[in-house]
């Protein structure tokens, strides 16, 4: 049996939190704490709307909770798994023009009530990236695709390598060079 305080949980890896999550629900709370803001920012950038970002984030965590037993660490990290679900939810939303609620309904989760303060905070999470996005557009094509895939779309190196039809090492180099160029250009603009 797992008996851990929340302080202990904060030292657990993502995989450990997921493993003990059904025995100790607070472990999933700690995992949520780690990915709440990146997930909200990801969806806010993708949809341009804070309310949709909140709804989609809720659906991702509900879907993750419903399929914890199917997570396979040999296929990738918890981060990749969560953002894989996120991209799936996003694709579903574009296709159906609405945010799915099936996972939340299955898990018996209450509908979210969003106030102006929550929406403003979600907007702020994504706002810092807008200047970077403008600079990103100026990078050479290969670097731009690699940085976008890795940093904005939160995808794995292996997955990007397959899509870009090159090795993981090459993708890492492109991301590294692209980020270095972005840092240099951001320095120029300040």
């Amino acid at each position, binding site marked *: 049996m797992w008996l851990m305080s929340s302080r202990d949980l904060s030292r657990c890896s993502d995989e450990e939190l997921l493993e003990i999550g059904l*025995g100790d629900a607070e472990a999933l709370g700690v995992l*949520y*704490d780690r990915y709440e803001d990146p997930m909200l920012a990801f969806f806010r950038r993708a949809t341009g709307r804070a309310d949709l970002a909140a709804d989609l984030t809720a659906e991702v965590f*509900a879907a993750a909770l419903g399929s914890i037993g199917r997570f396979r660490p040999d296929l990738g990290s918890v981060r990749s798994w969560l953002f894989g679900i996120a991209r*799936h939810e996003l694709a579903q939303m574009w296709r159906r023009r609405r945010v799915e609620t099936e996972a939340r309904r299955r898990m*018996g*989760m209450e509908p*979210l009530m969003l106030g102006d303060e929550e929406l403003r905070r979600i*907007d702020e999470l994504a706002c810092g990236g807008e200047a970077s996005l403008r600079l990103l557009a100026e990078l050479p094509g290969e670097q731009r695709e690699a940085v976008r895939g890795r940093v904005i779309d939160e995808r794995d190196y292996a*997955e990007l390598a397959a899509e870009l039809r090159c090795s993981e090492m090459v993708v890492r180099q492109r991301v590294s060079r692209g980020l270095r160029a972005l840092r240099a250009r951001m320095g120029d603009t300040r």
Partner: protein
Amino acid sequence: MNTLPQLRASLVAAAERQGQSAARAPRARRRTLRLALVAALVLLALAAVAVAATGVLGTGAPVRPTQPLKPSVGLGVPARGGSRILRASAADPAGGPRWGLRLVHTTRDLLCIQLGRLYHGQLGVLGLDGAFGNDRRFHPLPPDTIGRQPGAVNCQPEGGAVSLEVSGIPESGLMPEEGGLGVISRDRWVSYGLLGPDAVSVTYTDRGRSHTLKVEPGTGAYVIVLRGIETGPNRHGITSGGSGGAERPGGPPLPNPDGAITSITYRLDGHICEDSVKVAAARPCPRPSAAVRAPSLTPSRDLRRPLRVRLRRSALPGGYSATLSFTAPYAVPNALSGYSIASPSPCHGGGTIIDPINRDIVARARVTVPLEAVFANACGDSVLLEVLYSAAHSEPVPGPGSVLVGRVRVAIPR
């Protein structure tokens, strides 16, 4: 501090409920399950040997539609005598039944192309990778399942052409259910399409080698099945192109730059030409002289119809649901035209929520549409609702190609 503390609390509470229900599972049941699992594994092993040795599969229950189709709603239902298996087929990289295609004409004048595994002249799926309890049987896919296989079905207006590249199709051929993340051990990358009577062949690359495949004469149908490239946790991400991004208005589809197909060869007016992903193709096909435009509709003076909205208290976010009603100025006899309700949001970065009214409508009929969480898209004290009509197959969205039937601003009751 969390941005959405309510969501965190709701998630933790749901996890607690999940944990409690798992703990309640009686031990005896687990023992029974274990025995059943051992028995199933033995049967599976025997079935696998039988398939490998003889190529004979048992036939199991047919795939059921997720929701019953209706003749005048959405895709419609398969028209009587309007379905047939095409000759185009492809081997699977791991062997077993070939992959094939079926054409399904629907009562809403759509032509759907449906992908699946072929066995004894039937289209179906296999009991693999979690599908049908891994029974390794063949399960027929009736034509009325066109609504449940996203990625493995594409519906277009009749006479249209389409070229699709889809990743994440399970080896079984059965697409994961909505929101389902089943364990899929072997995905496929499938290119398939219907290129029309002028198409001659498609050229594609597989592991760096180029291959050319003749398409089915008359229909231009083809199917290519490759090993999946998404082996990570994102394997369920279905990417497709052709019907949307790579389609050329007024002409046949262009190859998708992100797909396996590198060129499509056509015979136009007796001359061979090709559409290629390369910028400088040797024999490029002529571009259509004029793009097909959605019929131009200018709203007449009496087109604008008053919209009526009736609000109801609701437990949903937004506090109210509503019914919106209007008198339809145009008939919608099939899926090639339609109305939608748009709710533009001037705040939170803009954007517009579009709810298509995806059904046949008689001209001058009174149309009533339920709206859930009507104020979910509101930015202040009110929400704007618009009814749009388009004579094109795509969902009516604000802008050219659609006309505004009516507009109403609804205030949040105080």
